[in-house]
């Protein structure tokens, strides 16, 4: 799984970290090119993805979210559910290639699904 995450960070322009997180907020595996607390990133984004899933599934009744992208002033994150219990997190900088993040993130999630 680490090899998939490392390759994803290499393939997406502007990416600096990739991780697999559980919907319970725990870090399963991660790779980062900078000093960063991946456990905190995973824990906080698991909550956001869980909130989005609750709204989509229950309040709006439109099924589960397929992907979630958040762009902040100093942090942007792309989230892609792998299975109902796990998700892929890709952290990118402000000038990243979102097309690559979506395509290659989805591809990595498919490959990781078979390993989880």
């Amino acid at each position, binding site marked *: 799984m680490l090899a998939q995450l490392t390759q994803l960070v290499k393939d997406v*322009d502007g990416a600096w970290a990739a991780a697999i997180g559980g919907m319970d907020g725990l870090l399963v595996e991660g790779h980062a090119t900078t000093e960063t607390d991946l456990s905190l990133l995973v824990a906080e984004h698991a909550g956001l993805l869980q909130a989005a899933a609750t709204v989509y599934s229950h309040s709006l009744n439109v099924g589960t979210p397929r992907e979630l992208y958040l762009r902040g002033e100093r942090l942007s994150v792309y989230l892609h559910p792998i299975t109902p219990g796990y998700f892929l997190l890709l952290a990118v900088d*402000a*000038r*990243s*290639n*979102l*097309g*690559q*993040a*979506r*395509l*290659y993130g989805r591809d990595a999630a498919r490959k990781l699904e078979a390993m989880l």
Partner: protein
Amino acid sequence: MKLAALNDVPGVVASALVGPDGLPIESYGDGGGALAAELAALRGSLDRMERRLGSGEITRLTVTSERIEIVALAAGKFTLGVALVRGHDTRSAQQTLAKLAQDVAALPHLERP
């Protein structure tokens, strides 16, 4: 629907219109999304080449691989590109791209830091 004219060009397997963020504004074909993302990445490299070589703006890019040929044009901050099966004449695609580039350059620019 700006790229629809490219669908009639012989040999075309994918086409894309993309901005600097790599998200396709419009794409056709199975590989259209990937073509958009990689054209945006190439465009980033070309911007550096222009600056470092002092070449002036690079407006056209052609790539030949084992199976396909890619022709791409820069139109302002946007990039238009088409992938053709290798061996097809690319002139018709280049002419169509040149016409489309004039429309595309007038699109509103995306927010980038």
